[in-house]
């Protein structure tokens, strides 16, 4: 037993060292975001001193150059409305596809599942040109496109769950005079809650961090830049000039994610595991 205690103590120390290693990159950017831009490349691992400390000037600079708060707003707008649209429309579609058995519904189901294995590069060129032609190149259009791209995984996950829901409850609701819409919203939707949380988290993580789709559809020259697009916009050219603003912008981009993670950690980890096992 003593031996076990000792080995656990060693393991604990090793894990602590690993935690420090894992946090180093984040610590590194935070550290440098407070240094004057000219001092960063001198000794990137040194703590800011009286001479090199820049206060919040990098942050002010970075926010002004990229209009960061607007980017944050557009990222939040696109993520929130896309996730809401995905939850509402794909759960309805999944319900229909599971409960109505015809040739059309099974073809549609396989088409949605098929879209999950197609890499984005396959459709990126044609999709972005089509989006331009049909005037989907704005935040509302992005919500529609995300609904289309997110449909595959979401429908797949909702269908998997709806199959296990017994028909009796729905039939009872129908006999009581509910039409299909009432049955869906009053009876089925509440049962879907656990899957809905998983679907929401997987899609939110993907949409918030997505770079290529908003970049190709909306582009750099509009005011609708999302956070990843504006980070790329500021530092995209190799060997960025204003290192300070870049460090500050990287820190600002991580903060919302870390807050979200620490508040909904339980759901995020559960959702990610469920998504991995089913997807």
């Amino acid at each position, binding site marked *: 037993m003593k031996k076990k205690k000792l080995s656990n103590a060693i393991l*604990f120390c090793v894990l602590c060292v690993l935690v420090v290693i894992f946090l180093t990159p984040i610590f590194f950017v935070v550290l440098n975001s407070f240094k004057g831009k000219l001092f960063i490349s001198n000794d990137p691992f040194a703590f800011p001193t009286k001479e090199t400390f820049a206060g919040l000037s990098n942050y002010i600079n970075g926010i002004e150059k990229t209009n960061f708060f607007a980017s944050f707003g557009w990222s939040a707008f696109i993520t929130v409305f896309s996730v809401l649209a995905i939850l509402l429309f794909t759960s309805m579609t999944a319900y229909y596809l599971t409960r109505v058995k015809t040739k059309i519904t099974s073809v549609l189901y396989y088409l949605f599942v098929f879209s999950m294995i197609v*890499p984005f*590069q396959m459709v990126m060129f044609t999709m972005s040109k089509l989006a331009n032609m049909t005037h989907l190149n704005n935040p509302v259009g992005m919500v529609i496109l995300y609904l*289309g791209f997110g449909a595959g995984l979401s429908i797949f996950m909702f269908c998997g769950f709806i199959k296990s829901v017994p028909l009796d409850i729905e039939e009872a609701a129908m006999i009581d005079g509910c039409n299909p819409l009432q049955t869906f919203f009053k009876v089925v939707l509440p049962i879907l809650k656990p899957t809905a949380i998983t679907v929401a988290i997987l899609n939110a993580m993907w949409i918030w961090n997505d770079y290529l789709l908003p970049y190709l559809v909306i582009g750099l020259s509009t005011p609708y830049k999302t956070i990843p697009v504006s980070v790329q916009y500021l530092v995209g050219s190799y060997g960025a000039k204003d290192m300070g603003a870049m460090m500050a912008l990287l820190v600002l981009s991580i903060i919302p994610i870390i807050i979200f*993670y620490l508040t909904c950690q339980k759901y995020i980890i559960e959702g990610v595991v469920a998504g991995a096992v089913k997807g």
Partner: protein
Amino acid sequence: MQKTLKRYFPIFVVPTLIAFSFAFIIPFVMGVYLSFCKFKTITNAQFIGFDNYIKIFADKDFLNSFLFTLKFSVVSIVTINVFAFMLALALTKKIKGTNLFRTVFFMPNLIGGIILGYIWQQMINAVLLRYETTLIANATYGFWGLVILMNWQMIGYMMIIYIAGLQNVPTDLIEAAQIDGATGWQILTRVKIPMVMPSITICLFLTVSNSFKLFDQNLALTAGAPSKKTAMMALDIYNTFYGRTGFEGVGQAKAVLFFIIAAAIALTQLAVTRRKEVEQ
């Protein structure tokens, strides 16, 4: 009930279907067709048969990116899964602070590829500065930089799946092995690993498809520098589309090949998982 519901097709299915058509069905069909065409915008396409596909095989960049992707995938799949499994073993030993460790190790997974890429670009450049070189001076640095970055991002994710698997191993099995005099190593290789095989399959395929389709991290970390030597397949396709005028058709043909490889990986996964399910 089915009959009443059937009439509600326009409400239940049509909205999703419209979005799905714009995002996927139409672009996919057009993409397949355009891979056989010469075009600059999608409205002036001219059918040219297999010319684009023939051009791919004369394209050194594509072969190079394929080999780089392959090499990167093999190295990162092995390292990510070995490290993640070791961490999962350590975190199922009921030691103090397990929750905190788990929280920290998983966190990088939530940060987006572009932002991760730039964080590591700055970190690695800061280290290399001491040796008076940079990340883009040598393709080897870019390769290992990408491996380290992917490990940092994916280890926590895989660890969570392995932990879930290890927690499902019945304790009586392990106790029985201990009574029979099995050593720690024997319990690991003969009891625990066979019992978590389903998690191992899931993690392997997740790492395969994530490494294979990697784009954001690649773009942010090196953008393919030096001279496209560290460009992976997704980045090479992107560069062909948007970096070389007149090569849009070739880019689309590359994308079709890329899709076929991705589909092959997914179908293998499906077949492997199905076979396992029958056995259980």
